[in-house]
């Protein structure tokens, strides 16, 4: 089955991802405010705990999905020639996928 974020599904994705990102940002700010981390090792220790890793992964998943829906909508409006549109959508999808891989690699490195 092809995963399509259009219409109501895209609307849900944008709103749910926005709410999650907002919650994560508030959580992160409060965490930094209550427990300031002054060194790289303290940061690394915090960011490599399993719960935080899952939250960061979920945050970037929400961010990238949010970006995909938004950027795709912009391209559907402005890039009318089918070939150009496919090229740009492919570029955006490739870039977002690259960012997702990068995030996973960084988080995996923290575990070692």
């Amino acid at each position, binding site marked *: 089955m092809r995963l399509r974020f*259009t*219409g*109501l599904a*895209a*609307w*849900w994705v944008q709103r749910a991802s926005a709410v999650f990102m907002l919650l994560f940002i508030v959580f992160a700010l409060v965490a930094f405010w209550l427990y300031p981390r002054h060194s790289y090792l303290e940061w690394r220790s915090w960011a490599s705990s399993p719960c935080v890793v899952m939250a960061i992964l979920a945050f970037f998943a929400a961010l990238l999905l949010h970006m995909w829906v938004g950027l795709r*909508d912009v391209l559907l*409006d*402005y890039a009318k020639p089918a070939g150009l549109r496919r090229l740009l959508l492919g570029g955006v999808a490739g870039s977002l996928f690259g960012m997702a891989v990068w995030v996973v690699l960084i988080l995996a490195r923290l575990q070692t």
Partner: protein
Amino acid sequence: MKLSISRYNPEHDESPYLQDYEIELVASDHMLLDVLLRLKQQDDTLSFRRSCREGVCGSDAMNINGRNGLACITRTSTLREPVVIRPLPGFPIIRDLFVDMTQFFKQYESITPYLVNDESPPEKERLQSPAERDRLNGAYECILCACCSSQCPSYWWNPDKFVGPAGLIKAYRFIFDSRDRATEQRLDDLGGDPYRLFRCRTIMNCAEVCPKGLEPVRAIEAIRLKIAQLPVHQGGLETHPPKSPK
């Protein structure tokens, strides 16, 4: 008053151009339409629509100093000079300030703009409670002047697919009417297509330029919430004091 008005005659112009006019205001020139009507007496080739002169029919919608509005309720005293008048943006130009509104009314027609109720009619009339009637406030006042749709980027790029703010505020008016019995069909029609309703990106130009102070964007959000089976704000839609072009 100095004016710069978009002119286009398809018989001998390749593209629209701005023509400058200068006219001495008289005491009766309260509104921009008064000035345009006197200008037309001097230059009878100048073409624009108008009818009621009261802000009710919506015929004289045009782009005034970069902002859509009705010439008949735009005060001359508040306008920056030269007043640049162009046809409604995004619509095909027929001549001067005349635009082709065929697509706009096709979209309006597509939302089934009338009550659908096959139940046998009551002896007198289909009654509504005051609360049911209140839900239509902020939507029924739309005069279909097209100021909103013509200022909506989502409508500019997809006039054939996206219903547009004017059509959607009318759709709200029927979806939330307690006497209508076609709610499911209306929601299926709008929600089953990625463009018809969901192309709205909440840019809010529609609410900004509505000469009646309506907020189509809120109607669109209410329809989306209804489709998503989420609670919808009770009562009518919010409105605001309309802002005129400056």
